[in-house]
Each structure stands twice: as C-alpha cells, then as structure tokens.
C-alpha cells in the first residue's frame, strides 16, 4: 500500500520537474508547442491531484487512490529513508489541511500557464522555471519531513526569483532581489528553528503506538527497539515533532538532565534558553517570522507590492494564489502543533499581527494609484484574516476549554486561504487582461471599461465582489467565520476586525468606479480595448464559477478541511487543559510544580562528567517549583 501512495504522491510532485526536463530538449523555435506541452503537464498534474482528492466511498476498500472524507489524521503516508545518518526520510502524506492546498496549487498552476501565452521572451526558460516552481510548491504541501519541507521551500524560492527578475517589469531586479532576500531571511530563521528542534527532539519519549503512526517504526518491535536505544534519537519527522511538542513534558519546553549526551526522559522542566524564554518559544518566534514574511504580515510585507507590480501576470497569480498560502500553512501545520506552549503565550501577538495586517493592508490599498499594487495590498489585508483566525486561542480556562470557536476560526482561516487563492488569482489575472491591452495600470487613467468590455467587466465585478466578501461568493465565508470566532478571544480585536469590512468595501468599490464605470476611457491605447478572448475566458470562467460555488456550497471544502482542522484544534484544546493548565482550575497560570518534575533551574548540566550517580540522585532531590528555585537562586547543590 505504501508503495502505491509513494508512486502517486511522488508522481504528483515530480511530474512538473520531469516535464521541465523534457522541455529542455524542445527546439527553441517552437514556443507554441512548448507552451502546450507545459500546459498539458500541469493539466495532468491537476487531474492527478483530483484523483488524490476523490472521495473514497465509506467502508470501501482503501484503494490506492482517494481520500477518506471525515478522517482527521494523515492519509496516504509513506516514508522512505533518505539520509539515514541524520534520520532524514523522504516522508510524505496528506490530510484535510494540505489536500485542498495541493489541489489549489495544481489548479492555479494550470490556469497560470494558460495565462502565460502573452509571454514571448525566452519561453523555454520561463516554462522550465515555472514547472520547477510547481514541483517546489506541491512538495512543500505534501512533505511531512521537516528537512524535506525545507528543501522544497528553497526549491520554490529560486525559480520565483528568476521569474520575477527576468520576465518582470521595469524595476524587476529590485523587486526580485527584495523578494529573494526577504524570503531567504525567513528561510534562514526557519532553518535555525528546525535545527533547534531537531537537536532537542528525542523519539524515545514517544509511545510505540505513536512511533508507528508517524511512520518512524514499521512494527511494534522496531518501535520498542528505538525506545530502548541508549542515545537520543533526533528526528525531522513533523508528526513525531508534533507528538513531542504536545507531550506533558515536551523536550522543546526546556532542558532535562543529560546522560550520554542526551536528555533523560522524564526530567524535563521549563527552563530558559535566552532572556527568560524557553526553546520552543524561540523556535516559535523564528518559525513565525519566517512564515509571516511569506503570508505576508505587516510589518514584513513590503516585498509583496513590489514583487506583484513587477511580476508578469501569471507569476502574480501564483504568488498571490499559492505562495502566500505557504505562510498560513506553515503556521497551522508547524508553529502551533509543535510549539503549543509558545503559541499559547504568544496568541495575543499573533492575533495582533493578524488584525494589524487586515487594517493596515486595507488602508494602504485605499491610497494606491497602481492597480496591481492595490490588489497586492488587498492580499495583505485578506491574509491578515488567516493569521487572525489561526491565532484565536479561545479554548482556554476562561471559556471552559471549548474548542469550537477556535476551530471555527481556524477553519475560517483555512477556507479564507482557498477563497483568497481563487479571488486574488482572479483579480491579478483580470488586471493583467487589461494591462495586456493598454500597457498601463494607473487607476486614474481608466474608466468606462463597462461599455468597452462588458463581459470582462462582468467577470471583474464578480471577482472583486468575492474579494469584498459579498455573501454568496467565496470571500464571505472565510471572513465571517474568522470574525465571528474572534469575539471569544478578544472583544477589542473582534470589533477592529469587523471594521475592516467597511474599509474593504471602500477601496474595492472606489476601484470599480474608477476603472469600470463612468462614460469613457481616459488613458492611452484606447483602441486596443477589445473584450476577452476565448483563452482568457477559459481562465476567468473557472475562477468565477468556483468563487460562486464555494460561496454557496462551502461544504465542498469543509468536508475535507473540517475534520483535520477541528481535530488539530481539539488536540490543542486538550493540551491546554491537561498540560498547560494542569495545575488546577483555579490557577490558569502555567502550572509547573507537577510531581514528576525536577528542577534544573538555569543551565543544563554540562555533558562532560555526568555519571550514573547523578541520575540516581535525581529521584531523591526535593521537588521544588521552578519559580521558587529561581527565587532562592541556584542554591540547591548540583
């Protein structure tokens, strides 16, 4: 079974790269053939992802294809050793969180390639880079090994740099290098966090069952063998890290006693790494910054407007439609599950960033004169909903650990990612359509397009209203779910986030008025304004249809999303109750004096002269809360 999954998922991820390889051997003077070939490859990938997503009939034999709707956990996992000396695996799988994003990626890649016809410069190189980019994107969403994830993350970065830097507008070099450096900074921070987590992880802490479900061990015997090993077993396995992060005594929460160069299970205590914060707090911060750059959240968002303005239309579609989603995906898949303790402490920080992005992006959008810049800032605003929805950790003591509102927020955030993928790609495409004709994007030099291009205007108003969050279109569901769920986290943020609907209506309606309404077109090249071509319609129709379909029948996505997202939230809610607040219902502060904990107050014991006597004294040491140990200084002898 593993093998068939392996084949299918691998095919999905690497088929575009294979296509790129084949494309390299195409004769240079056949651009049309190359375009068609690339489009065909992406169409096949799309079909394959649909096959992946095809619902398996309940109770039917789990065939090689299909997705069991209603299951929360990972499906179709497979794991192949890759670099054994570092426990790195070629480990992939999907659940309700990643699958919709995978389908979105392949779908938008196909449409973006269809939108690439106007590109005439170095077509072969463009298409090759595009297909490599698609491999990177799909790989990020499907990989479950942190190292593999990182590799795909970087694979995605480089083609994007060239696609903006070579095929972009007049300031393309500036935009490309800005994009590259911003994102690279994020990846470097992420790499540090990955290594921090890797070197503190220890598989021996997990139960044999868990080791089997996360595909570390094939059988119980292997699992037991791993647990009985003398030294720490580090791992890059994301699922294993998740399980460790949510342990009662998480290795990421701090240091324990060290024997044979590794922490001894059962000795963990919250301890400080730097400035009074433990390791997972720092890991969370680093990862969050890395993902926030990608989202992009204010104040690390300024690469986005430049990149969008300079990027060619199809690249803008991919950038807004897929690349931004990686940030949200990373936060939902990695930050929160692996570092829940930090997530709990930083919930306010995350939510404030989200709300700030929403408001800031909307204000900035209102002031723009460049059509693409405006849409780019609307992306900042709309992606703020995602960050906010993920962060609303309302499953706390105050609300009786009720996970439902938070689950609604996170579901809304995920839905918003899909909806924004469709509406923002559509918006960028439609801006591109008119740019191809008149070669300018100055909002003050449009007007009257309704009369000149009625069909186009119909599509544009539809897609822009989807962005505005009109009920019946996809933007509404995500926004309203997030907004409603914020109330139980913070009334203030809820009021602020609800106010964004006014600003959004403001800038979108004003844009529609300036561009589409009015008596006549005011800019140059007016004679080129002919209505959409068949190829353009073939791109716009699916986008608008999906925007309507998901707005009217959001269950189409929630059937996939909801079990996984809600399951993940429930785990975190349970974690809050059982681990975070285990000290007692009356005291919601982090409870430290759990019985089994020992105190290793400030620094871990240096690995040099630890002996067995040390670990035997451990049991006899008086148990004191960390705080009191800190208060008395480190007087207790080691």
């Amino acid at each position, binding site marked *: 079974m593993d093998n068939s999954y392996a084949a299918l998922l691998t095919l999905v991820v690497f088929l575009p790269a294979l296509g790129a390889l084949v494309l390299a051997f195409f004769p240079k003077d056949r651009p049309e053939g190359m375009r068609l070939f690339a489009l065909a490859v992406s169409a096949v990938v799309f079909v394959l992802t649909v096959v992946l997503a095809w619902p398996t009939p309940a109770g039917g034999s789990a065939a090689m294809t299909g997705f069991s709707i209603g299951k929360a956990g990972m499906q179709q996992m497979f794991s192949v050793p890759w670099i054994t000396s570092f426990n790195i695996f070629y480990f992939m799988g999907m659940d309700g969180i990643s699958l919709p994003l995978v389908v979105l990626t392949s779908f938008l890649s196909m449409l973006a390639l269809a939108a690439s016809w106007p590109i005439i410069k170095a077509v072969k190189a463009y298409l090759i880079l595009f297909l490599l980019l698609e491999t990177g994107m799909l790989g990020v969403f499907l990989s479950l090994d942190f190292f593999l994830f990182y590799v795909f993350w970087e694979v995605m970065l480089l083609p994007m740099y060239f696609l903006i830097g070579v095929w972009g507008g007049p300031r393309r070099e500036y935009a490309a290098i800005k994009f590259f450096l911003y994102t690279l900074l994020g990846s470097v921070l992420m790499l540090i966090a990955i290594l921090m987590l890797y070197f503190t992880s220890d598989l021996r802490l997990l139960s044999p069952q868990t080791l089997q479900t996360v595909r570390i061990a094939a059988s119980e015997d292997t699992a037991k063998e791993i647990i009985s090993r003398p030294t720490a077993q580090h791992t890059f396995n994301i699922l294993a890290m998740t399980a460790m992060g949510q342990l009662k005594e998480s290795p990421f929460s701090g240091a324990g006693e060290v024997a044979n160069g590794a922490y001894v299970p059962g000795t963990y205590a919250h301890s400080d790494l730097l400035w009074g914060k433990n390791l997972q707090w720092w890991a969370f911060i680093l990862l969050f910054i890395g993902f926030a750059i990608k989202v992009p959240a204010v104040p690390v968002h300024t690469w986005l407007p430049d990149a969008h303005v300079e990027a060619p239309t199809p690249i803008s579609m991919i950038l807004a439609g897929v690349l931004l989603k990686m940030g949200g995906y990373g936060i939902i898949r990695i930050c929160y599950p692996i570092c829940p303790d930090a997530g709990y402490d930083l919930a306010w920080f995350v939510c404030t960033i989200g709300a700030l992005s929403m408001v800031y992006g909307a204000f900035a959008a209102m002031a723009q004169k460049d059509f693409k810049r405006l849409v780019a800032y609307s992306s900042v605003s709309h992606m703020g909903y995602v960050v906010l929805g993920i962060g609303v950790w309302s499953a706390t003591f105050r609300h009786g650990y009720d996970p439902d509102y938070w689950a609604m927020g996170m579901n809304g955030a995920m839905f918003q990612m899909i909806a924004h993928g469709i509406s923002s790609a559509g918006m960028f495409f439609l801006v591109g359509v008119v740019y191809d004709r008149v070669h300018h994007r100055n909002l003050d030099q449009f007007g009257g397009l309704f009369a000149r291009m009625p069909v186009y205007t119909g599509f544009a108003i539809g897609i822009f209203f989807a962005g505005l969050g009109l009920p019946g279109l996809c933007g509404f569901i995500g926004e309203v779910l997030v907004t409603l769920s914020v109330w139980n986290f913070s009334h203030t943020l809820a009021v602020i986030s609800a106010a964004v609907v006014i600003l959004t*209506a403001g800038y979108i309606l004003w844009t529609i008025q300036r561009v589409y*309404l009015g008596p006549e077109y005011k800019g140059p090249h007016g004679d080129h304004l002919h209505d959409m071509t068949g190829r353009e319609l073939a791109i716009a129709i699916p986008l608008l249809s999906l925007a309507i379909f998901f707005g009217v029948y959001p269950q189409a996505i929630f059937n996939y999303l909801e079990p996984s997202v809600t399951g993940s939230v429930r785990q975190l809610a349970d974690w809050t109750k059982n681990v975070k607040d285990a000290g007692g219902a009356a005291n919601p502060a982090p409870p430290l004096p759990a019985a089994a904990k020992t105190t290793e107050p400030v620094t871990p014991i240096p690995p040099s002269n630890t002996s067995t006597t040390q670990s035997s004294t451990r049991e006899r040491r008086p148990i004191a809360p960390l705080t009191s140990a800190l208060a008395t200084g480190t007087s207790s002898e080691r």
Partner: protein
Amino acid sequence: MSLPSTLPVLLGLAWLVPLASFTVILFFGPRLGPHGKHGSTVATGAILTSFVLSLAALIGWVWEHPVQTAKHEAHHAVAAKIDAAEKADGKIETGIPKTGDKSAAVETEGGESHEHAGPVYYSGEWYTLVSVGRLRLTVGYYIDALTIVMFTMVTLIASCIHFYASGYMHEELHEVTDHEVTLSDGHHLHRPGRYPRFFQYLSLFCFSMLGLVIAGNIFMVFVFWELVGACSYFLIGFYIERRSASTAANKAFITNRIGDWGMLIGLMAIWGSLGTFAFGDKQTPDGKLAVAKSGGAESPGIFSLVRRPENGHRLMTPEGMVRDGMSATAVGVATDVAKTTAEPEGPAKIGHWLLIVAGLGIFCGCVGKSAQFPLHVWLPDAMEGPTPVSALVHSATMVAAGVYLVGRFFPVFTPEVLLVIAITGGVTLMLAATIAITAVDIKRVLAYSTISQLGYMMLALGVGGWLAGLFHLITHAFFKSLLFLCSGSVIHACHTNDMRKMGGLRKKMPWTAYTMLVGCLAIIGGGIPFLIGLSGYYSKDSIIAQALSFKLANPSPLCGMMFYAVAGGAAITAFYMFRLWYMTFAGKPRDQHVYDHAHESPKVMYVPLVVLAVFAVCVGWPIFQLPQLLEQARPAGTGITINGGVFAPTLVHPAEHLSHEGSIHITATLVASATALSGFLLATAIYCWRLISADEIRNQFRPLYNLFWNKWYFDEIYQKIFIGPVMFVSRRVADFDRQVIDRFINGCAVAVRQISVLDDLIDRWFVDGLVNFTSRKIFALAISLRGVQTGRLRQYVMLIVVGTVGLFVIVSFFWNPAWGAGPPLKP
C-alpha cells in the same frame, strides 16, 4: 398536506423563482426577444408566480389560524391580569427570574395559555452552510404571520412595480442618449439600452429581499441583508456612466456597511455566548416543538433563550451571556451558572451588557439599512437610480427591512435598547421632515419623507408599539410605493425632477394626479375621525397613541419628546406632501415647455398606480383585520407592560393594548387629525390659495432655511470628520511603507553593501597585504639563506650533527616515562 410542511415549500418556491429569473436573464438576457424585450416578461412572470404562491400561503395560514377578535380581546385580558399581578408585586422585573408565582398564574389561565405561550410559527432548516463542532451556520426558515404578511406585501408591490417598470424603462429598448453625461468631445453619451439588465437586477433584488424575510436565523438575515445591499448598489448605479449615480451607489453600499459593522458586532455577541443564530426552537416536521429528554426544548432558539418559557417569557440575560460576562470580568467560570442565575441580585447585571451590545449591534444594522440618523445620508442620493427602483427598493421593501428586523428581533431588545431605538427614530423623523420642507427635487422630497416615516416606525417600536410600527410598515409600503411611482410618472412626462418647473399637470395627467392625491392623503393619515380613513389614518393613529401612552407612563421630558416629535412630524408631513402635490399638479404651469411636452403615461404604468391606490386606501380598514393578523406573530412576553431595565430602572414601556383604550385613543386620534389638518391647511394657504408667499417665509427664516436646504450639512461634516481622515490615514500608511519600512530595508541592503566594500578593502589591504608581506619576507629570508648553500660537504655534515644533538636534547626535556607503557588513555 399539513400546513407546517406546505408553507415552507410554498414560500421557499416564492423565494427561489426570482433567482431562476435572474439566472435566465443573466445568461440569455439580450437574446430574449428584440433588444431583450422579454426580459421584463420573464421577471414579471417570476414575481407574479411568487405573489400567487405567497397569497396561497396567506390563505392557508388564515384558514388554519383564523383571526379572532374575541381571542385578541381575551389576550388583552390575560395581559392585563399579568400587569395587575406585576403591579401588585411592585418590583423591577427584568432579568430576574420569578419562578413560580407569575408563570403559574399564566398557566392557570387555562384556555388562554396557548395564547401566551408565544406566537405560532414554523421553523426549520433547509441547508447547512458550515458546521464546526456543535456550531452550525444554516439556511432555514421561520414562518409566522409576519413573514407571510411581508411576503404578500413585497411580492404584490414588486409585481405592480415590474409592470410599471416595463413601461417606464422602455427607452432602454433601443439606443439611449444620456443627456446627463457629457463626453470630453462635448457630445452627449450614446449607448446601447440595458433593458434586460434592469430586470435582472430587480429579480435578484426580489430574491434577496424574500430571503431576508423568510430567514430562519439572524445569520441568514445578515447574508441577505448584504445581498439586498449589493442589489441596491447595482440599481442605484444603473446609469453607470453618470458619476453622480456611481458615487451614490458607493455611498449607499459603504454607509450600509458601517451599519453592518455594528450588526456584525451584535452577531458576535450572540454567537459567542449563545452559540446559535436560530430565531425559533427546533421543531419536529409537524411544527411541534422538538422536546429533549430533559423536558426542555431540544435546541432552543435565541428568542427562547432570552425569554425562557419557564420564566413566563420574561426577558432575562441568558445563561451563555452570564457565563461570558463573568469570564470577561475575570470572575472565572462558575461551577454552576444556573445556581448563580437563580439568585435575585446580580446575575441580571453580569453579562447583561452583552445583551445590550447584541441589541444595539443588530439595531445598528437597521440604522444603516433603514437610513436612520446618523446613517441616513445615503438614501436621498440613492434617488439617482431609476424611479421604479426608488419605489421598490428605497421606499417599500429594502429600507423597511430595518424596521422589519427590529420587529423580528423585538424580544431580544432590552428596555435600554428600545429607548435608543425610540430616540433614533424621533431624531430621524424630525430631521428628515425638516429637510423635506425645502427640497425641490420631487424624488428627494419623497426620499426624505421615507426616512421620516421609517423614523416613525422605529420610534413606534422603541416606545413599545410593536404592532403599531409593523402595521405602519405595511401601510407605508403601499402608499409610499404609490407616491414614488406617481412621481416617476411625472418625471417620465416632464423629463425633469425639479418641481419648480412643474405645475398644473393634473389636467395633462389626471390618473397620475389623483392617484398621487390618494397617496398624499394616505400618508398624512387622512380620514374622518372615529369613523373611517385611509390606511395611514389607522397606522399613524396607533403610533401616536402608543407614543402618548409612553409619555404618560414616563414623566421624563425625554420620553415626552417622543410624543411631540410624532405629533409635530405629522404636521410637517402633511405640509410637505401637499406642498409637493400643489407644486406639481395645481396652479399654473411654471415652465411652458415642460408643460407642453407632458402627457399621461401609458396604461401599463397607470394601472399599477390604481391598484396600489386601492390598497393604500383600504389595507388598513378594520374589516381586513391586518393588525389582528400581525398580532398573531407578536413575540412571546412583549404584550405586557415592561417596568424598567437593569440600567434604566425607571423606564416603563406600557403594554400596547393600553393605548387602544378610552382616553388615550381619543386624544391620539384628535391630535393626529388636528396636526394633519393644520399641515394641510398651511400648505394649501401657501401653495394653493397663495395667501402667504413662500419666498417671504424663506427670507424671514433664512438661517433655518439654509440649514434645511443644505440637509443640516451632514455630507459636509462627514466629509470632514470621516472621509478626509480615512484618506489621510491611508495615504500616511502607504507612505509609511515606502518611506519607513522600505527605507529601512533598502538601508539594510546598502549597509550590507558598504560592509562588503569594507570587507573587500580589508581583504585587499590587510589580509592580502599580510600574506604578501609574509611571502615577501620569506622570499627575502630564502634569498638571504641562500648564503648557507655553499656546496661544501664538511659544513653540511657539521650542521647535521649539531641539528641531531639539538633534537635529542629537546626531546629528553619533555619525555614522559609513562608513554611507553600500555595503550594510550582516552581523554
């Protein structure tokens, strides 16, 4: 088939047929007949079907639940008894459950207990939009007498307006020359007609409006609330080439969104604490309450949660809000909320503010939609749309949706919120009425009149006149749509909106003139006191009566103001309506050119006028028992006098039936007639008999006139305090990105480059210099050592010997004897 299963089907179909029409016209619009002429046929057919279905539902309803005046009286008797019991108790009631005595008293009324158990309704769900855990957002229905009356009213008026519009919009069937748009080359705009598009939008609007009315939960109301807003946007901006039209459309949408912001906050307050949006309790398929094992409702709706049956439907802070309120004040989750709520003091206050936030939030949405102060500014501008739109969307249905929602949500409003509603209504009604006095655009006069009348309804609801407000909503819909269609007919004939260019038109267009006269009489509440009147006579009377009753119950001058606003408003209404009629139809023509071209509208336009006029006359007549029908939908527990809120303990909302009694009723009728008559006489004196010169008055009251003429400067003030600052902030934010964040980023890049240049210099001058220096020195050393290379063998041997001895000496100094023994130790 039983009623509970038939009604949802009937009304559901009535709701969806216009959507089908919209879809058909969207895809096949221009191909439906020449220039899309049959677009109107499709849309009109659809709305007529809806009307027939609604009528069937109405007949079915009345058949099953006959309107019984006797029962109505009996209900009053019960309510009076409860009142008496309450007075005997002499305590402030709200929020404090009185288990036992009073609800028991209600139960023991025997046959009447059903009456007091709340209205008959059927509710259910059609479709689940989102479901997360136990939280569900659904599309469902809540059908009671109010729903059915609204359905019938909306579809009837919409049908009339569809017929009318098929005549009014005929210009759009061919090439249109828009005289209001001048192109840059100095010509007027020529454009193809958009006849089918207009009907497409109308159909979408009807669908959205009916969805709003049938909605089974407040979330669904919000969904359709936004959709009617969008339809309104498209219809106001129908003449997309006119800048004024598209600006008005934007203004309408954005102003409404400000209201929706508040509504969203209200929704959050409800959702966060109650976890449900449903109005009614969950029912079994045969319309009975679905009972849980514990004996209570299986999943109670909002209304039952705030007015629990076991507490005699008295408004109290629901459990969820108490819990939420406690957690917000960091009291922490009580082990047993129910225990806390059972205590007489305190619990009503904890979390009570959430109930107020919920009520104010929902009302905020209504303020936007119903163009109440301070969000009234969009409605007059919305008159940029074609007149049938003004009649349907911006007078009869959509703007009334705000009033409808206040009526629907009435059981959730606390006395404090009701007071806010009443004040808002009062301010709005006076504000708009004063502006209407000076307006000269015929549609704007009607627009301000609409705002003013909506203020009436809000005020009525706010002073506890649930029935009065909703009754006026229905009657107003008929006469105001009639008035708008008449004005449209005039505009159609004169090609101008300016009343100063009209006059004497009654000879040219008698149908229009006299149907409009009926409308004017209806809106001022014309009639013979105590005998018979037009529809407005009855509804306005009941509002004045309730306001009077409220005034008598509350000694506070603020509450008294409500009554004076209503009475004064009635006089002003009569004045400006007849000013309008006289300026348009009476006297001599002021502009001969306009007069010469004027003509009566075609039959397809004036027949709907006659139909609406008939309804405007008689829909309020007692024999049709419309109030009694509406009374069936009265929310449980709102038919009695409410004494005081938690934060306003002295406030009294007198029971509505009290205002029908003796002295109050007589006083109200007399006041209504007197005020209407005085306004009418004043208008007649100035504009018909010309006893007083209008110019003279204008000069006398110049400052006041300027204030009214400039609409109290609201647009200017909003421009200054809202739009300006928003634009300012947005520009600063955009600048911040470029000037601060990007500068910082670029600065970092530049700094890195500088460092690399420095690095390069260090490499070249220091590192390389050192290396080169070293190599040069070594080279020099080698050159100098060349001197040793003599080639003499003896000298070499001597150097070897000296070297070897030296080595041995050095080694012997450092030798450790242990080195020789055993394997080397690991460190």
